[in-house]
């Protein structure tokens, strides 16, 4: 049979979901039975349907759902924050105009257009960048260490849980084995008791029969 694979290509999902009309279903049946390629595609679709059903929903990580959508509340005109902002701006302008420099004994220097040269500024910036780099490296190392430690803990925890589950399963199996052994032993004991009872009864009957025979023999001897 020559198959152009078109029927299954168009209807493979409807065919699997049972939504294909009877005529199409019959043609799909025929294609799947007689064409190896169509059979493969059908099997693949089935496998993927099954695989898709195994997807486990992942929890959404924490995120700020309203960060980008809710505009900040507008301050009413003439409120104190607006006046404070205006005052700060004016103060900054005055500081720049007067080229004020504020320095501390620790080496901190805040200059508003003061006497610092470009070279000095670049030197300070370079020093600050180097310090920042070092801090970043340290931070990165610390985070990597933390991550490694977390992973080790997680693995240990996992191993411990696995062992716990395995032990519980072994305990359960052992319990089942013990109970079945005990019930078998009980049945054997009962069987043994029954046989013993039967044997005893037989022996009593035999004794009674022998007594009767002996009595009869004695009787006939007397006669």
């Amino acid at each position, binding site marked *: 049979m020559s198959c152009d694979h078109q029927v299954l290509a168009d209807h*493979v999902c409807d065919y699997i979901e049972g939504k294909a009309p009877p005529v199409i279903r019959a043609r799909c049946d025929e294609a799947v039975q007689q064409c190896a390629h169509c059979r493969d595609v059908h099997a693949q679709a089935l496998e*993927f349907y099954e695989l898709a059903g195994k997807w486990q929903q992942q929890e*959404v990580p924490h995120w700020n759902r309203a960060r980008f959508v809710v505009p900040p509340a507008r301050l009413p005109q003439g409120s104190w924050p607006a006046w404070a902002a205006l005052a700060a701006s004016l103060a900054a302008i005055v500081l720049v105009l007067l080229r004020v420099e504020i320095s501390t004994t620790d080496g901190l220097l805040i200059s508003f257009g003061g006497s610092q040269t470009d070279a000095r500024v670049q030197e300070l910036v370079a020093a600050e960048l180097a310090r920042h780099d070092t801090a970043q490296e340290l931070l990165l190392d610390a985070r990597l260490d933390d991550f490694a430690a977390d992973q080790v803990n997680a693995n240990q*925890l996992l191993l411990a849980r696995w062992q716990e589950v395995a032990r519980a399963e072994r305990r359960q199996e052992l319990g089942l084995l013990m109970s079945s052994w005990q019930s078998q032993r009980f049945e054997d004991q009962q069987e043994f008791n029954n046989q013993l009872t039967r044997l005893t009864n037989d022996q009593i009957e035999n004794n009674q029969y022998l007594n009767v025979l002996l009595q009869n023999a004695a009787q006939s001897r007397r006669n």
Partner: protein
Amino acid sequence: MLFASASDETLIGKALGGSQRHWERLVRRHETMVYNYCLRMTRNTSDARDLLQEVFLAVYRHLPSYRNEGQFKGWMMRIAANKTMDLLRVRQRSPRLSTDDAALDAVQQWQAPDTQNPDRVYEQHNDNHRIRTLLQALPPEQRLVVELKFFQHCTFEEIALQTSTPVNTVKSRLYTSLQKLKDTLEERHVV
């Protein structure tokens, strides 16, 4: 509790009126579906998180133009599909230098379970990882069709509407995807 039975349209109306709580409620209702969709479509959780935010940002911006035509979910997933394709195109043009984001994700996501059977949890984790790896083997357009068909259970007409593509093209993409998935699975079995 108050919002438990509120319809999407009610929440949208309140959110448009400036209610942050109603917007958050609407997002919480749909974010798991969108996030899992993003997770399957992208390479890693980081991209999925970014995409999730992009989608809901776009949804909020376009909320005023949503006119209760059809279901909100379908409208939202159409936006998600567009945003996903934008992101995947950007990623194709300028791939990141990371060696294997999905593998890194697999390590990061794996946490020791608290109460469930560890075997079962590991199996589930493995299934998700397998699905994502298989989907990554497909080009973005085919991946989107497979996602919409197998995971969102859309009809071909709905997929055509969401992707702005003719129905026959959708069917052909799905067929090609299945053939490609078969090859990928065979390669993995051989390896």
